């Protein structure tokens, strides 16, 4: 093979402000195939996803492949995701531009390309000897890319000898005209789709062109500043940059969190919000102090609630004022796809409808659809395209339907999508990492493991639990001490680092439990069979074995991989019965009783150290066994055994954290829970003071004590409620590597533990 080499030269500015000229080699190849099945010229055509074209388009009757330009991908990714569009050529130029401009669209595009049945082909035009063009002096990057796309389209049409045409889809009028001039068959995606006569696909088209009629109207919103002005404003301190959080109750109100500012900046009113959508990074300008305001304490869902324009004035002027500002520009849009329903329409056969998102923080979205009758009682997904100054609502388009409103499947889907829970089936690649169903422990697996199969190990879990990842044992030793063991399922035996299953699990990060459905982090074979420490079966485990004095002091410890055979998998109730039934005196009963004693000591020690007992009441759904409809909700009854298992899990986590930190001081994966700043408690202290309860939040122990004292005899729920509210004041606990923080910062505030990690529950987190 012969290769031509040219060079790419560009100028770059370094951080220090020096101007550098950078020269890189650029090899041009002749071994890049065109990807078409019918092509006989390309010798190196290894991948040939482009097949003969079948679908019929009335606007373009010839057989053809599609070649899309960058704008089409960026704006019409929803339409591209539709299965009807096949045989599409994606140029490297387009791919790189998309990657540069929007990472989310890039990821979705890569997913489509990865789906072989869609027949998408990436043509690496920039390294192909016939399609590479050099940038002309003074040519803008955009023009250069457009030219490369046209050159590639022309090359394809010549290369395929008119047996199959390559149709360039372009949305930009100017570049379309240029392409037609050069003799490339070109149209816009809208025109192409209309030729397909496919209603669903038409709805999925982005809503950019339909706003022309509205531009004649008076603008409602002030214009956004240009990025350059925003950049300058932030640099000079005139503007601030922050994340916008819409209010859940009032659609005309929101907060902006600005780093370094003590208080969030309040935004009020349509013009001041200026088309920001929850999560966007916005540029704001502060209002003069005379115009500062306070949250309106109103519940407003839509403009309909604003029927009295003067309702704003009737609200009494608040005494306390908050820093208030207005949005002058949006730095980064965090638009995603939203689940919701289509608002009931009074006009028959209307094509323009309002979409109401499930998330109250998101404004209603105007969409255009001809399928209203079909979609009116469905949960649908909609994406936002633009929000012009003239429109009250953002403009969007229909993406897909999830199912009927009220149906369990559809509603589950809404919950999962809105919380961004990956819940697709495991891919074949992931399932390929699994051992066979009939897997048993072999002699090779036992190398380096301690054999605990003879120990009286048992597990205690909620009823119906199939992913049992912990088991316990306890037995008296001759010297009067006890041997206590916590055995955790050894998931690492099946999930090796870097494999598909590991990557998938790290993306899911946790198992999600819905009513009657569980979205596993690792496939079911592992989570409820091979890694589940079921009673009577030999399983691989990772064990912590301690020697404890009767006062629950650890005098000796050992951490090892092991193989165990659980004697019994019990529910909390069963275990409680065995502990309470004094007639039973087998080794398991004795072990459980001793563990229970230890747990009480451990718990007391923890509480004395200042651990918080916060309430997040766990609930359980009673599910109809046949229809699988939920029937009732009940609060989980906490038994002694619940607390027993919990104490030993905490102990294992703390002890393992100490162990890994001493062995890997630089990169032990630990978990810390930072002390919340006093300002987080402000509203809770104020609310409690109203009811005559004083809360001291100086340390976790003070907080625990004052929560214990805050009891109202006439209202038994009062204390629980206070604890629930206190939970909301906390910060998130986070994972970190030990080398990145000093030891003082390792503190787990909630548990009052100086060091902590998540060693337990490897199946589900």
């Amino acid at each position, binding site marked *: 093979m012969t*290769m031509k080499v040219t060079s790419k030269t560009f100028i770059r500015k370094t951080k220090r402000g020096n101007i550098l*000229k950078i020269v*890189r*080699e650029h*090899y041009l190849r002749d071994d890049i195939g065109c990807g078409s099945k019918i092509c006989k010229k390309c010798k190196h055509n290894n991948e040939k996803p482009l097949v003969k074209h079948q679908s019929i388009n009335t606007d373009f009757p010839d057989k053809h492949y599609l070649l899309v330009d960058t704008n089409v991908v960026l704006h019409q990714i929803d339409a591209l995701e539709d299965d009807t569009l096949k045989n599409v050529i994606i140029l490297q130029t387009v791919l790189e531009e998309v990657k540069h401009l929007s990472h989310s669209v890039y990821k979705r595009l890569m997913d489509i390309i990865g789906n072989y049945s869609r027949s998408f082909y*990436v043509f690496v035009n920039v390294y192909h000897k016939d399609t590479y063009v050099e940038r002309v002096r003074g040519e803008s990057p955009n023009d250069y890319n457009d030219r490369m796309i046209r050159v590639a389209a022309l090359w394809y049409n010549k290369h395929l000898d008119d047996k199959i045409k390559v149709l360039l889809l372009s949305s930009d009028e100017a570049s379309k005209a240029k392409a037609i001039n050069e003799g490339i068959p070109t149209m816009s995606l809208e025109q192409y789709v209309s030729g397909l006569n496919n209603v669903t696909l038409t709805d999925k088209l982005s809503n950019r062109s339909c706003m022309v009629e509205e531009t004649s109207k008076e603008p409602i919103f002030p214009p956004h500043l240009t990025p350059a002005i925003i950049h300058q404003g932030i640099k000079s301190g005139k503007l601030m940059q922050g994340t916008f959080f819409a209010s859940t109750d009032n659609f005309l109100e929101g907060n902006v969190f600005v780093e370094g500012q003590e208080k969030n900046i309040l935004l009020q009113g349509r013009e001041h919000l200026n088309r920001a959508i929850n999560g966007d990074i916005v540029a704001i300008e502060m209002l003069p102090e005379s115009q500062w305001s306070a949250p309106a304490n109103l519940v407003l869902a839509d403009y309909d609630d604003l029927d009295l324009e003067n309702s704003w004035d009737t609200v009494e002027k608040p005494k306390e004022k908050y820093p208030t500002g207005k949005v002058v520009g949006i730095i980064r849009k965090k638009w995603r796809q939203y689940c919701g329903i289509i608002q009931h329409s009074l006009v028959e056969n209307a094509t323009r409808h309002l979409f109401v998102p499930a998330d109250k923080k998101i404004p209603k979205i105007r969409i255009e659809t001809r399928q209203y009758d079909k979609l009116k009682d469905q949960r649908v997904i909609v994406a936002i395209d633009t929000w012009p100054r003239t429109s009250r609502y953002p403009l969007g388009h229909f993406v897909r339907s999830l199912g009927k409103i009220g149906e369990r499947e559809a509603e589950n889907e809404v919950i999962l999508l809105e919380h961004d829970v990956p819940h697709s089936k495991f891919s074949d690649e992931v399932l390929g990492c699994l051992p066979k169903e009939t897997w048993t422990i072999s002699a090779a697996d036992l190398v380096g493991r301690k054999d605990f199969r003879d120990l009286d190990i048992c597990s205690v879990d909620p009823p119906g639990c199939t992913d049992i990842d912990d088991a316990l044992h306890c037995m008296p030793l001759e010297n009067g001490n006890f041997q206590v063991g916590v055995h955790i399922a050894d998931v690492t035996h099946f999930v090796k680092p870097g494999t598909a299953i590991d990557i998938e699990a790290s993306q899911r990060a946790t198992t999600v439990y819905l009513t009657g459905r569980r979205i596993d982090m690792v496939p079911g074979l592992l989570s409820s069979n091979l890694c589940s420490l079921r009673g009577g079966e030999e399983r691989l485990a990772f064990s912590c074995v301690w020697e404890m004095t009767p006062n629950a002091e650890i005098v000796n410890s050992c951490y090892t991989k092991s193989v165990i055979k659980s004697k019994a998998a019990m529910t909390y109730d069963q275990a409680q019965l065995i502990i309470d039934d004094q007639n039973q005196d087998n080794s398991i009963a004795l072990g459980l009783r001793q563990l229970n004693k230890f747990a009480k000591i451990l718990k007391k020690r923890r509480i004395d150290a200042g651990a918080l007992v916060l309430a997040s009441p766990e609930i359980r759904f009673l599910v109809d066994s046949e229809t699988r409809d939920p029937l009732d909700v009940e609060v989980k009854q906490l038994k002694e055994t619940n607390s027993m298992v919990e104490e030993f899990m905490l102990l294992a986590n703390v002890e393992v954290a100490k162990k890994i930190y001493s062995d890997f001081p630089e990169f032990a994966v630990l978990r810390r829970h930072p002390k919340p700043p006093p300002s987080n408690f402000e509203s809770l202290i104020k609310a409690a003071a109203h009811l005559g309860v004083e809360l001291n939040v100086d340390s976790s122990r003070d907080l625990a004590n004052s929560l214990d004292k805050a009891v109202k005899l006439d209202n038994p729920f009062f204390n629980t409620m206070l604890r629930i509210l206190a939970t909301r004041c906390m910060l998130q606990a986070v994972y970190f590597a030990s080398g990145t923080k000093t030891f003082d910062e390792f503190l787990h505030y909630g548990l009052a533990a100086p060091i902590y990690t998540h060693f337990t529950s490897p199946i589900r987190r």
Partner: protein
Amino acid sequence: MDLLSRQGLRTDGRRSGELRRIRCKMGVFNQPDGSAYLEQGNTKVVAAIYGPHEIRTNRSKAPNDCAVINCQYSMATFSRSERKRRPRDNKSAELTLHLKQAMATAIKTDLYPKSQIDIFVQVLQSDGGNYSVCVNAATLALIDAGIAMEEFVISCTSSLANGETPLVDISHLEETMGGPSVTVAILPISGKIAMLETSQRIHINHLEPVLSEAVRGCRYIYEILNKIIKKHYEEIGGALNWGTEEYNI
């Protein structure tokens, strides 16, 4: 930025196992006893050999039974996109030592007792793999100088893309963006390793594939250089060519 795209192409359009373009010229200078100019991609190097000659410095310390090898590695101030302050710094002192070590394994020093061989290499343009190109250029220059060697000393680099695919003959961009890189110098006929260095810690599982890719690169370079040398001597040294071409001028 991906060092290796899904289509298997690197940032400059090469595939993972492809070398950069090699161009070279032997005997570029008249003053030294041997010289060579070598280009691997955008890395351009000149090498000059003086000797074997009488030992000039430290005559007392000179060994009686073999030659002293004196090396100097330097980078032209204009060799990088940012101008260097001085051509020799701590880094080049280190590379000088490495160069000396690699060349000493192949030069038959015992044939030149009480004498000294000077090897000067200078990087004119730097774009990754500077050391390797310098070793290769020094080998060419030594051959040009007619100094007896066991065999060639050939060096090449390799790194890892996406944690799995070894990349051979890495450019500056791949050096800075990628993971650990391995530089190896070998004697290609006997397969001995004259020098081996990694830029940072590399996982033991990765070392084997990366190293063998670098060695494979060395063998390719050896083939190419060998061809060039043969052609060079056919042109200037072959009896048939006497009196033609350059010699007429």
